């Protein structure tokens, strides 16, 4: 029952309706000036980029195994069972580990604020809970951004590639990257040209596994190392005790004779 988004760059006309819909849903300012900004920021969760006559959209990928959720010391991020990776601002202490850990560079920060929050696309969890689709998908005039069941969207994307192999690159960006995401991209040009990290570089391993390999060993490491340290302490001090006791004994024997 996990939901997802499918963005088909070949159907996108670059109208930026998704940007304005997103801003409205999240109470963000949106005017011509913001529309002209070609990078994501704390006040722009999603952006439609133009290169030659082709378009590409960027937004949080809502990873199946999100790095942001695994690194956050206070668990301010979590993946809901419906698919969105959401942020609980009241927990956040502002360490910004999520920002350095995210391979897609999605979490942005309110650098000018005195009580700053991390900002990113949260996939309209309220709308999804109410059985609706996300603001960007609802507003999209061409269906380039489509909301639906994750499994359904994967098979639909595969169908589209099969039906017109000349239009699409033969891959779905987001299907396997960092263990799979909840946002899929179909395009005729490599997503990497628009700033997406190269699939080969980020790999298919879920990011939390990189630190998990070490963190999983800690519960075993603590008792073993404690025992080892205690043992060393005992041995090195036992030597002193024995030496002292022997000296005492010798003294007594000496005085006894």
């Amino acid at each position, binding site marked *: 029952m996990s939901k997802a988004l499918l963005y088909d760059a070949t159907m996108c006309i670059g109208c930026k309706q998704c940007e304005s819909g997103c801003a409205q849903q999240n109470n963000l300012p949106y005017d011509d000036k913001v529309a002209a900004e070609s990078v994501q920021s704390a006040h722009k969760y999603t952006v439609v980029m133009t290169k030659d006559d082709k378009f590409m959209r960027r937004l949080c990928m809502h990873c199946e195994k999100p790095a942001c959720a695994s690194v956050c010391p206070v668990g301010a991020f979590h993946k809901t069972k419906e698919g969105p990776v959401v942020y609980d601002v009241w927990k956040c202490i502002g*360490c910004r*580990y999520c920002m350095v850990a995210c391979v897609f560079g999605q979490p942005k920060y309110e*650098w000018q604020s005195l009580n*700053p929050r991390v900002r990113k696309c949260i996939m309209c969890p309220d709308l999804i809970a109410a059985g609706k689709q996300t603001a960007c998908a609802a507003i999209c005039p061409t269906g380039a951004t489509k909301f639906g069941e994750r499994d359904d969207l994967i098979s639909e994307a595969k169908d589209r590639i099969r039906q017109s192999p000349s239009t699409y690159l033969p891959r779905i960006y987001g299907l396997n990257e960092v263990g799979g995401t909840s946002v899929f991209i179909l395009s005729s040009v490599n997503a990497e040209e628009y700033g997406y990290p190269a699939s080969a570089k980020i790999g298919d391993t879920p990011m939390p596994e990189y630190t998990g390999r070490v*963190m999983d060993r*800690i519960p075993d490491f*603590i008792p073993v190392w404690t025992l080892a340290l205690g043992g060393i302490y005992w041995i090195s001090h036992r030597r002193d005790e024995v030496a002292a006791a022997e000296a005492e004994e010798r003294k007594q024997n000496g005085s006894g004779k």
Partner: protein
Amino acid sequence: MKIKLTFWKVVFIVIMALGLYSSFIRYFRGLGAVSNMTDQFPWGLWIGFDCLCGVMLAAGGFCMVGAVYLFNVERLHSVVRPAVLTAFLGYILFIVGLLYDLGRPWYIWHQLIYMNPHSVMFEVGMCVMTYTTVLFFEFLPNVFERFNLQTPIRLIKKIYPVLIVLGILLSTLHQSSLGSLYLIMPSKLHPFWYTPALPFFFFASAVAVGLAMTIFESTQSAKAFGRHLELSVLVTLGGALLVALWVNALLRFEDYFRRGLIRQIFKPSYEAYFLWLELTLTFVIPITMLSFKKVRLSPQWLYLASICTVLGFITNRLNIALIGFETYVGHHYIPKWTEFSITLMIIAMGFALFGLAVKYLPIFPEARHPVQPRLRTETAPVLATPVLGHAGD
């Protein structure tokens, strides 16, 4: 002498004034106004220096406690107290630095209630919190002795074995975990510094720096406070430092060899220049110096070798935290002057507090073996600020 004294006091006051101004900017204008950190560079100088280097520079505490109480190396006894003091101050200042860097420092206690055991940051936070408490108890006897309170001293002595084992356990965990923080960024951090062995390197470098810092701070305080310093202590530490540096160097080059980077690290590139600087300061110079018996037996040379080592490993950690990300990000990060001034203020506070503690607490033992050759402090080349000598005047 009087002019010099005033000079360093002026320097101290200027640093503190600039630091206070920057603190005002930090808390009343925000992180964006006080720093050059951006969405692309969310971790800057404060994480790189105040946190990564700060914790490393405080490693002398657990190294000396381990050597003296765990392995019973009795002759190092005289440096345990200054090393524990440095560590205690270092961790307090690390936390102060964190209060500047965190976006919402007033929620720092959330760590205790919204725990995420999968997070390396959570583990580091918990370890640092607990270890600072342990260091506080290890430091307390100084205060009790000062006021001649025998009962609490006896109580602390009873739990000392627990403090020692706990302190070393926690240090092992968080010193290495600082390296684990970066394990989740394989596609961002430059391959010269990203390696699955990062936690091992962070621990190994902490031990080397712990030894070097102990040489540095005991020589420095001998000079600044006119204390006795036994040559045998420095010679032991110098020998251990040489071994630690060799272990570090072998681990590093084994890692480069295993990952097939040997050829690449010798090819000129932006990252390579910084790597060369780092490797020269951490390994080439100090290992060469310490290989000579003359250096290992001379307080002045040991002092210089330890400074070189410390600078080298600081370069190493700044490379990991800052330089290693520049290619990924695509532009340079140069800290704003206000970022530098806050870091400087924290360092100055460290020197001042150390000076105050040494002045009022029995940190340095009275010369117990007056027959031992005394360090000729007059000739020791002292580079670092003598502010600590005059703190509290």
